[in-house]
């Protein structure tokens, strides 16, 4: 493939040429696996999950895992003009020649890129039109739990922690490849393994009013529900210490060291907090070993101690201190993302690494609303942390909030401005003036997500959300030292439709892609009108998916998946939220979500 003809005409050609440090080169592997991140290289190469899967599968002698990303618009144009199909970075193998093609679903707005990448590969988009010689196409990652809109395009979905189930997949695939059996036979065998959902074995049936009536099980061997996989021994779970180091500067250009998986706080809006349960930690000893190895093999000088809530890791202060001394001479610094306001410690801000700004997420302006969403942060927590951060010399802070949370009133919105003003005062008390202070308030519109207590909620109507945002904007203009950042985009509404969508939305996806949708998570390419048109032409009403409140006994499209969290528990949490009652952090006592039953014993961090 002569890429020299087109690479000089595209931005950052290194996105497509591979050859990075620690890229895997292999010959003669039986199984050709392609891992696809449906966004630009610069974004996808920041994704830890992809690196775990890439290196773990490549440890197997029988498998060669290669990577592809969504080519940028300039590259796509060149490829189409020159009849160059989508190819892997490692060997320039046309993706169509792969045995298994796996997409990671990190966010709903990447779905159109998936269709585009299939098209660019020359692979039939609809699974039932794919030949026996075309790759098996599947998807995993957090959105796989509720990806009915993608169901007609996927042969199967992978649910849960990938470490064990992907190995099971390849073991089964190897048998199938030499057996002469059909794809359907393979899928039938696969559906019996925990962690796999084969959508073609189920048929959703709708009522007159559009609500799901039943999910018919078409194949007698298919399970009633697809069940997620959980890796329990997290300390010994695979970690890629010889991870690939991109040449191109990526969004997160550092080692992501996964210190913990799962979260026990139970914030009611947060899907990750539910689908990644139970909390499992790696031991500090193991983490130090992994850090040493990884720095040695990559040369990175920054380690991000990653998890959903790193301040909650049980020995976080000890770990930060130990890493500081381990890497003193190599000048490798550790940073902590995702810090909660109630577990913030001044030890987390390293002297060596002066970040330009710190980010926190109070999420709601009033205590009442924070209790509704079970955020369990108080104003005192916020101000104490601000005091700590300002005293350490930071003059720039970003605070995230959501607008449109369930039961939210205009007073709650006004309370955001109130909190901002209090933070400004905190700074003024310390420094006497607010000359250098910059507090950035950032808001996004709440999107109800499946497998959370709010999965039944209506998303607030567009006009009301925009009204609230304008109201907040007016209030914040009057607070000196504060900047309000918001994007004029309607992505959140499409995200809301896709997140709780059913299989009929696949038609909308197909149509909007045909109209040219791609890179929908990018402001410059997202077009709300294009989506509205696609909905209209498919004869579907977007409001049915977004602003409609679901009945508590309504059959939901994602009920076919067993996430390990009981639906009754989510309902109970939903009821509690209506009264503003909170639920404790389950490290302090089991709250009965069902996870311990699911894994057949006590949760690891109990």
């Amino acid at each position, binding site marked *: 493939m002569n890429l*020299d*003809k087109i690479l000089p005409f595209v931005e950052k*050609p*290194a996105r497509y040429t591979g*050859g990075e*440090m620690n890229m895997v080169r292999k010959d003669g592997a039986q199984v050709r696996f392609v891992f696809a991140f449906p966004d630009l290289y610069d974004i996808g190469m920041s994704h830890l999950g992809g690196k775990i899967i890439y290196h773990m599968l490549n440890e197997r002698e029988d498998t060669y895992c290669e990577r592809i990303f969504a080519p940028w618009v300039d590259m796509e144009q060149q490829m189409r003009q020159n009849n160059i199909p989508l190819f892997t970075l490692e060997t320039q193998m046309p993706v169509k020649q792969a045995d298994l093609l796996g997409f990671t679903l990190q966010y709903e707005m990447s779905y159109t890129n998936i269709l585009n990448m299939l098209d660019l590969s020359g692979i039939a988009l609809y699974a039932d039109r794919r030949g026996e010689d075309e790759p098996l196409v599947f998807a995993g990652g957090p959105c796989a739990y509720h990806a009915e809109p993608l169901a007609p395009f996927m042969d199967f979905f992978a649910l849960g922690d990938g470490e064990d189930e992907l190995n099971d997949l390849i073991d089964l695939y190897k048998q199938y490849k030499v057996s002469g059996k059909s794809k359907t036979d393979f899928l039938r065998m696969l559906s019996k393994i925990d962690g796999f959902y084969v959508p073609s074995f189920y048929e959703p049936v709708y009522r007159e009013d559009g609500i799901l009536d039943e999910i018919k099980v078409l194949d007698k061997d298919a399970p009633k529900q697809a069940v997620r996989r959980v890796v329990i021994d997290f300390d010994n779970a695979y970690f890629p210490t010889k991870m690939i180091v991109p*040449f191109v500067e990526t969004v997160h250009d550092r080692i992501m060291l996964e210190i913990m998986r799962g979260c026990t706080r139970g914030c009611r809006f947060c899907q990750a907090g539910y689908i990644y349960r139970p909390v499992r930690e790696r031991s500090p000893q193991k983490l130090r070993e992994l850090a040493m190895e990884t720095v040695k093999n990559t040369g990175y000088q920054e380690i991000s101690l990653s998890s959903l809530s790193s301040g909650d890791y049980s020995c976080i202060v000890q770990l930060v201190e130990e890493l500081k001394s381990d890497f003193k001479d190599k000048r490798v610094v550790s940073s902590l993302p995702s810090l909660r306001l109630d577990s913030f410690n001044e030890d987390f801000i390293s002297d060596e690494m002066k970040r330009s700004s710190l980010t926190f997420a109070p999420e709601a302006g009033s205590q009442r609303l924070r209790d509704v969403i079970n955020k369990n942060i108080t104003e005192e927590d916020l101000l104490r942390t601000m005091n700590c951060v300002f005293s350490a010399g930071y003059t720039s802070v970003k605070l995230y909030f959501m607008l449109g949370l369930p039961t939210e009133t205009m007073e709650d919105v006004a309370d955001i401005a109130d909190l901002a003003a209090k933070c400004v005062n905190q700074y003024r008390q310390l420094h006497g003036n607010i000359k250098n202070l910059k507090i950035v308030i950032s808001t996004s519109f709440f999107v109800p997500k499946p497998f959370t207590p709010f999965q039944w909620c209506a998303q607030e109507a567009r006009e009301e959300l925009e009204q609230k945002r304008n109201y907040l904007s007016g209030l914040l203009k009057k607070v000196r030292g504060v900047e309000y950042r918001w994007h004029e985009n309607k992505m959140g509404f499409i995200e809301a439709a896709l997140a709780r969508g059913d299989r009929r939305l696949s038609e909308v996806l197909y149509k909007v892609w045909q109209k040219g949708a791609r890179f929908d998570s990018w402001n410059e390419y997202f077009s709300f009108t294009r989506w509205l048109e696609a909905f209209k032409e498919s004869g579907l009403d977007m409001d049915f998916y977004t602003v409609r409140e679901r009945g508590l006994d309504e059959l939901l499209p994602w009920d076919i998946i067993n996430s390990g969290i009981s639906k009754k528990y989510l309902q109970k949490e939903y009821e509690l939220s209506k009264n503003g009652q909170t639920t404790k952090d389950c490290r302090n006592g089991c709250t009965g979500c069902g996870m311990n039953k699911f894994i057949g014993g006590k949760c690891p961090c109990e």
Partner: protein
Amino acid sequence: MRMIARFKKGKEVKYISHLDILRVFQRALIRADILPAYSQGFNPHILLGFASALPVGVMSCAEYLECKLQNETEPEKFAEALNAVMPLGFEILAAKKVEEPFPSLMAITEKADYIIEITEPDGVGSEEIKTVITQMQNSAEMIVERKSKKGMKQIDIKPMIYSLETDGKTITCTLTASNVSNLRPDVLWEEIIRRTSGQPLAEITRTELYFNIDGSVLPLL
């Protein structure tokens, strides 16, 4: 101590940009267990620099870097340690310790040799190439349009060309490569293409870099 090294940027990594290459070496030093020296101040950075930036798409066997090291290191060990951990396509060809005081490489770089090998003629034969090059040798000036911050600019590149020759298939040239005057080989090649009847493709390689040391202009390694 300050180490200078000559390195190769091969075909596997020809599309890696100059800024990316800086990071490649920063990380390679850490992997090789070579401790670089850091600058003082609020935002300390590794004291690593290059003689001249190479455009994306151009290969080279004559790139130079200089690096201040915390500890005394033998140049052979330096090269060996780095070569053991560099990504495929990068290779340290030679290394030498520099006696201070010595100016920065960037300040003394003067000119560079390039080879432009035509890989796909697109109907442009060797006679045509010879004619175009002769034309360029004989012209008193050569105005090209370059995009600048303020819009399109007209630059005369003729005085930036020390020599320009061809056998019809390969073009060799020596161009300015200093911080006051730098003619990129791809800019020259674009101008050559413009004067032909087609859209030939070529591979460009920098083959030598020359430094001005007390009036003598020569390669350092």
